[in-house]
């Protein structure tokens, strides 16, 4: 889970996730946007989960998300390890 980010001012958002390293047995990285009314209570946003299985850059958009954003990420596979950079690009 990333730290909560408050972005009520933004009309659109885009996550960029740069996977630098992804190791293990058939590793996969599962990424889900989460939204919140107050930074305390969270639920998944409607955009489907994005799955990445190799290093590289992936991106997806979020709109009408309300006030708060964070990213829920999970690793699956045998003894998986990942190193990622996460960007949140926001526009009014």
């Amino acid at each position, binding site marked *: 889970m990333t730290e909560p980010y*408050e972005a009520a001012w933004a009309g659109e958002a885009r996550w960029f996730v740069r996977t630098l390293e992804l190791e293990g047995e058939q590793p996969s990285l599962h990424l889900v946007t989460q939204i919140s009314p*107050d930074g305390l209570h969270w639920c998944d946003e409607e955009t489907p989960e994005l799955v990445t299985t190799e290093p590289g850059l992936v991106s997806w958009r979020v709109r009408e998300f309300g006030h708060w954003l964070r990213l829920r990420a999970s690793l699956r596979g045998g003894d998986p390890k990942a190193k990622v950079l996460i960007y949140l690009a926001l526009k009014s």
Partner: protein
Amino acid sequence: MESDDLRRALIAADPKLSKFNPLPRILAFDEFNTGTHGWTELIGNHDGHGNLDTVDKHMRDFRPPQLSSCDFFDTGTHGAMSGTYALKVATRPVTGHTGVAIRRLTMAQRGIVQFETYFTYKSEAATAESSLGNRFGEIEWDGNLHPSEAQFGCFTIATDLCDGDGVRYHTVMRYQNTDLDNKLTRRWVYPVVPEPTPKENLHNQDNLVATEDFTAPNPEDWHPLDEEPQFLCYNEVPTKVNWHYLRWQFDTRSRTNVELQVNDRVMDLRDVPVPHYPDRYDGLENLLNFYVSVRTHSPVRNFLFLDSALISVDW
């Protein structure tokens, strides 16, 4: 009418500026209702490969500032003092974590520099899952006193300055709400050493921890300004927002502190020492950086909010 009287009258007639007391030249007026105005995350230096693993351990995670509408679980959107948004600097919920926002300028001349802001500070409201109970530090909830007040560590206003001739130094003031044992101190403190630099730490990474106080890591290097606590308005729960006025002056001609005003208290800082780095710096000529930081002394997120900030000079 004298020109200074006219200038004062024009400032007084502008509702955006009349809440400030600027010196003759306004360098920056940052009303965070209109954006972040260049206040950004501070990250430590890294190598020529863009490898962020080479950033000092305690400078990797200062977190980006956020434009906050100050919304809370109990009241909804509070808004800032001016409009909807304030600049929020937030820590992680990790004891010792620091959040930092920095603004980078340079000096066109040396002289008096003044930083003014309207600010407030908060611990994060508790949920059933994150609550540490009704007692924390020396505070027990009694309907007025709230444990969240003792869960707030400190906030800092600071500079990174360098002359045209390469002398680098910082002026720094910190409001210490609690000590590291979560006991309320409510003192203004300042560091007596310059901030350790990435160059000094380059071969020292094993001795650094992620939650180190990057401004001055040794608590003994923070000295109180005087024996008087300053009681600020926390207003009983972490979801009530009251804005405080702060005005801070330093002199880049003499490299000294001058004065700090916070609400009705004016503190003479002329005797507060400003340590210089022993080495001269190239590449930082006329550096005029400001930063604000917030540091938690508890496993609770701490927030510093700025409604707006104004930087002015006497030249």
